[in-house]
């Protein structure tokens, strides 16, 4: 009997071991890993496994339900000051214990940023927070300049995940000073407090996670995860079918049937909290008349794009809004429509003479991007506009010659400020690239939208902003793309509604691998 058990156990052993190790074939692997400076769709895949925020949320739910993470409790001791009690006994992957010093260091490297990549991120989302300070070893305070309607939301951002102070400062140069080169070095050898430590990182090629046994929370379900970059869709599909990869990312809807036909494989997907958008240059000499840009927008049948390219699985919005935004979700507001007759009428009024309008797209960056670009110029032709697709892998959004191109507006956090707000704020990235103008009235609506603590006031102000975008368009949200992952049937994983787009969450309870 004992012998039988032993052989059974032995036979099961390699299976058990392999069930704890998986390989992910990713379309992209980042060129650096630092949650603070990164806000790309590529990077967002990786941070949640290795880093923690002070406050977390229940990611299985669409509506925010805040949960303790590195902070065990928090309260506003003044309208502009939040005090947080830190969890004791948390260790970083390098063995250091986490204290208030690390937390203050992590927050202030962003809030009082001097390293240029941090400055950009701090400005677009953390501008209301001048500093964090230590009260004692396990208590910190965060100060806001003005009353903040989005405290928990902003304290749970990827950009304010906690990193170790001593380790980072000692990476290069003076071990007591945080130099820019320390942050550069950190981005290649990242250390956090999350359930998986980064065991190996080859920028743009490979990332290996290993279970971190001293994690403060529930142990990670996987012993080891290899993330390998496989850029070509066809190669990723092959890797999955041959068993070389257990999960693959970024599958276009056209490819889903191929995976689903295979009895060993399945797919999981969702309409990602991100808009593929068309941007238009308000300051291009030929497009200064808003009626031409309105026509460019009105001529696009977004439902047809969804039906044809996304098999109807994408979500076409009536305005720049998402269900994730909870109380601020405004689906009743309609600012973007399909109306080719009106497009033609506007072009006549504006005296459009048939000049060529270029639509720039990268060849493969956005799923279906090139297809959508070609379909859009065809729709423009039907609406009386002379469009031309220009394929280029360089970003043209900052060029004065830009007429129109594709882009994405991800939801960086669950609020209109975290999506439209980050991209289209006064002095934000769109304005500083010279293709979007704001005036005092816009800034005034913006102020009320951003800082009012009354939800109804914020909603009303956001409607004002949307009306402005409708009258003098610089952006058209096309749809929320339906992004899919392919995987073996033995794996139970799916993207969760409470995350920002593309997060590969392999924490306890969020992935299971059958096989023992």
């Amino acid at each position, binding site marked *: 009997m004992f012998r039988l058990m032993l052989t059974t156990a032995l036979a099961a052993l390699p299976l058990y071991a392999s069930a704890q190790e998986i390989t992910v074939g990713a379309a992209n692997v980042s060129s650096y890993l630092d949650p603070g400076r990164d806000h790309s769709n590529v990077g967002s895949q990786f941070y949640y496994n290795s880093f923690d925020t002070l406050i977390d949320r229940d990611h299985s739910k669409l509506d925010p339900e805040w949960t303790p993470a590195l902070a065990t409790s928090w309260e506003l001791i003044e309208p502009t000051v939040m005090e947080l009690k830190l969890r004791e006994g948390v260790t970083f992957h390098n063995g250091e214990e986490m204290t208030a010093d690390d937390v203050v260091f992590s927050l202030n490297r962003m809030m009082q940023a001097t390293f240029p990549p941090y400055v950009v991120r701090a400005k677009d989302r953390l501008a209301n927070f001048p500093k964090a300070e230590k009260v004692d070893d396990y208590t910190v305070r965060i100060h806001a300049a003005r009353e903040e309607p989005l405290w928990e939301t902003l304290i749970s951002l990827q950009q304010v995940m906690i990193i170790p102070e001593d380790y980072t400062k000692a990476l290069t140069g003076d071990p007591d000073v945080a130099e820019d080169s320390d942050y550069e070095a950190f981005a290649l050898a990242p250390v956090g407090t999350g359930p998986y430590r980064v065991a190996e990182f080859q920028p743009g090629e490979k990332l290996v996670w290993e279970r971190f046994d001293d994690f403060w929370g529930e142990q990670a379900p996987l012993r080891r995860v290899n993330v390998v970059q496989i850029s070509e869709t*066809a190669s990723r599909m092959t890797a999955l079918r041959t068993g070389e990869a257990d999960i693959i990312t970024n599958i*276009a809807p*056209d490819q889903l*049937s*191929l995976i689903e036909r295979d009895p060993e494989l399945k797919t999981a997907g969702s309409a990602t909290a991100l808009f593929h958008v068309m941007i238009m240059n308000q300051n291009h000499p030929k497009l200064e008349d808003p009626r031409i840009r309105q026509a460019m927008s009105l001529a696009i049948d977004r439902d047809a794009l969804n039906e*044809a390219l996304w098999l109807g699985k994408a979500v076409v919005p009536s305005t720049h809004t998402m269900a994730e935004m909870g109380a601020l979700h405004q689906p009743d507001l309609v600012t973007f429509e399909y109306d080719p007759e009106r497009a033609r009428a506007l072009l006549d009024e504006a005296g459009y003479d048939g000049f060529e309008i270029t639509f720039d797209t990268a*060849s493969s960056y956005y799923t279906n991007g090139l297809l959508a670009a*070609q379909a859009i110029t065809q729709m423009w032709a039907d609406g009386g506009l002379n469009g031309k697709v220009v*394929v*280029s892998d360089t970003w043209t959004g900052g060029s004065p010659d830009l007429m129109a191109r594709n882009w994405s507006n991800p939801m960086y956090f669950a609020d209109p400020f975290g999506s439209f707000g980050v991209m289209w704020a006064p002095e934000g990235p769109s304005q500083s690239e010279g293709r979007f103008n704001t005036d005092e009235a816009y800034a005034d609506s913006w102020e009320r939208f951003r800082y009012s603590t009354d939800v109804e006031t914020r909603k009303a102000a956001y409607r004002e902003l949307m009306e402005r975008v409708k009258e003098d368009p610089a952006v058209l949200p096309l749809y929320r793309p339906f992004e899919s992952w392919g995987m073996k049937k033995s794996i139970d994983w799916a993207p969760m509604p409470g995350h920002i787009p593309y997060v590969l969450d392999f924490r306890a309870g969020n992935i299971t691998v059958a096989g023992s």
Partner: protein
Amino acid sequence: MTAIADPARPRRKIGKTDPIQKLAILIGVSLFAAAILAPVIVPFDPLGQSLLSRLRPPLGFERYSAGHFAGTDELGRDVLSRSLYGLRLTLGLAFAGALIGLLIGGTLGLVAGLRRGWVEDTIMALVDMQIAIPFTLVALLILSLMGSDLTVLVLVLGIAGWEQYARIVRAEVRRLTTLPFIEAAWTAGAGPIYTAWRHVLPNLVSPLVVQFTLALSNIVILESTLSFLGLGVQPPQPSLGSMVGLGRDYMPTAPWIVLVPAALIVALTFSVQIFGDWLRDRADVRLRDR
């Protein structure tokens, strides 16, 4: 590709054309005719999309969409119409490229053969450089730096094979200038330009035509490679290579998008190569005594 006949190969009787050659020439002629007549014979606008009938298979398969004999592509465009337009564009580019190569290479070869000295050394050094560097790499570099519009593409295809012309022309010129009739022309007081034009060039026509034909199929391949890699002809304009390139994601689900243009590339290069060989065999009459 030189014009020297392989001695190990049994020499064909001149004037006799074997069945494979006949077949190849027939295919070649039909492809050229199809390319020229494309605007008249294609059933659909090659750029006309029909989003609701995407990825329909060719005649004889389930879900076939009437009239689209070779199926439709990822935007519901007719694959046959696109392939024929692609063939037309690919052939047009190849002709323009081969002509530019002929002009550059021929001129430089002629100058090198007639002038000798440092001029010849420089030109032949350039030829050696061109041979030593893998040209696809150079083409990729130029196209990614200059952007890929049709003019740049044609120029790149033009400089792809000039060195072969230069070598052939130089060798022929060197041989010809030792022959008595050239000597006679020199002695009679003919200048170098007159000699080149009146006496040397007419003797170069047949080796150049052969080389032109062979270069054509190489350029078709190069153009297809560049367009496959996304650096050649840009969408929505179809070329055979770009159709294969953009269709490769659909290979497992909608293989016809790739197979039709790929078959045309194979048929085209095959027939042009065989035709070039056939032409070379005939040109041998004059070259046999070298």
